[in-house]
């Protein structure tokens, strides 16, 4: 009745927990992709995905934060409705928002690295608000650098045109997301550690 167990290569408890959390944040970014707001200055709507990317870096650190976003991209490519407005498929990864999407893992890593100053996360209580904001501003820079470059490449736009379509319309909303992330991190009710 007992199964032979010699060959079973168990995933460590720590790794399993990290994997579960990574998948969780991937799903969170996906859930945030549903939350779309009309954009007052452009027909392109604003989503909360970036907030999820920030939170992944902040809560999971650079390594697992980035891994989490890689899972997000993989799940989306394979049909999970986690991209903008609940869309899915490989097409998005080479489409107009490809630059943004591919930047997310890097952005999460950057945010995580600035916040935690090492590969492993540290206690968030020890992190000041300026560090948090600084990390996310840097993350935003990464996202927009890739995003705008992606637009220019994919849609054959000039640099100014790409910024017009892809950055000018969004940037004000990013400030709100950064503020929201700070609010969530600073809330004493979050029990995660």
């Amino acid at each position, binding site marked *: 009745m007992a199964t032979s167990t010699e*060959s079973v*290569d*168990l*995933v460590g*408890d720590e790794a*399993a*927990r*990290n*994997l*579960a*959390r990574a*998948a*969780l944040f*991937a*799903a*969170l970014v*996906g*859930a945030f992709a549903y939350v*779309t707001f009309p954009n007052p200055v*452009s*027909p*392109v*709507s604003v989503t909360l995905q970036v907030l999820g990317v920030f*939170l992944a870096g902040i809560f999971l650190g650079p390594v697992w934060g980035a891994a989490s976003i*890689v*899972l*997000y991209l*993989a*799940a989306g490519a*394979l*049909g*999970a*409705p*986690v991209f*903008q*407005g609940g*869309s*899915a*498929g*490989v*097409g998005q990864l*080479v*489409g*107009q*928002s490809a630059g943004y999407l591919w930047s997310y893992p890097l952005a999460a890593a950057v945010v995580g690295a600035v916040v935690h100053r090492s590969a492993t996360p540290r206690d968030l209580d020890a992190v000041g608000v300026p560090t948090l904001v600084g990390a996310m501003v840097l993350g935003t820079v990464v996202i927009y650098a890739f995003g705008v470059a992606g*637009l220019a490449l994919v*849609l*054959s*736009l*000039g640099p100014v*045109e790409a910024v*017009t*379509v892809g950055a000018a319309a969004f940037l004000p909303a990013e400030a709100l997301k950064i503020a*929201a992330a700070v609010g*969530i991190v600073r*809330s004493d*009710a*979050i*029990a*995660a550690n």
Partner: protein
Amino acid sequence: MTLAYVPGDSFAHRIDPRSKLLVQAGFAAAAYAYTTPRGLAVLTLLAVGCLRLAGGGARDLWGYRFAAPVLVLAPLVAGATLGEPWFRLDRAADTALASYRILLILVVAAGYVRSTPVRDSRAAIQRTVPGKPGRFLGVGVGLVFRFLPLLKRDLLTAREAVRARGGEALPVRDRMRLVAVAGINRAFARADRLGTALNARCFAWNPTLPRLAFGRGDYPALAVGGGLLLAAAVAVAP
């Protein structure tokens, strides 16, 4: 509504997910290599064919409506100039073609999504990417699919719990904070509990790999995918 797997028995439903992924990769490469009116005309036929073979139709594209504004706006912005002649048709046309090729790629992707269950997609990853990275991606993607409805539910029940106890009286800002914080807290707790469950259930790096096998229908699909990749390579080769 949103694009998702639809059970069915179309040609695309019956073939291996790896063949379908190859077709998508080939199609995207070709669309980038042949962004000309004639190239895109041929690819249009192919894209519509792919979606039809997956039992899909125009309805499935509704899921991509959020892409539409950018795709429409981009040619206008590209054409616009600050001085004479105010609008340059040639620039606009270039970008319009680029926009259109994205649309085609999305059409093909829609065919994959509607004809491929999660199980198969996971199997494709685990059988294509070797070792621990493959396992990480395979299980991770499975968990994302598992978490997505839970998370929506957690956010929803956090809202319900607040409401069920008279939280409507609170200002919107407080309510949003409560729901966000309670929702994220729940999600965290849930992730940790599921992590524990994975361990309790002997979560291993080397499980039985999911069943997948190429069948007869896969040969044409693999040929089309490979052909497209080849065509793209020819176009970019110096």
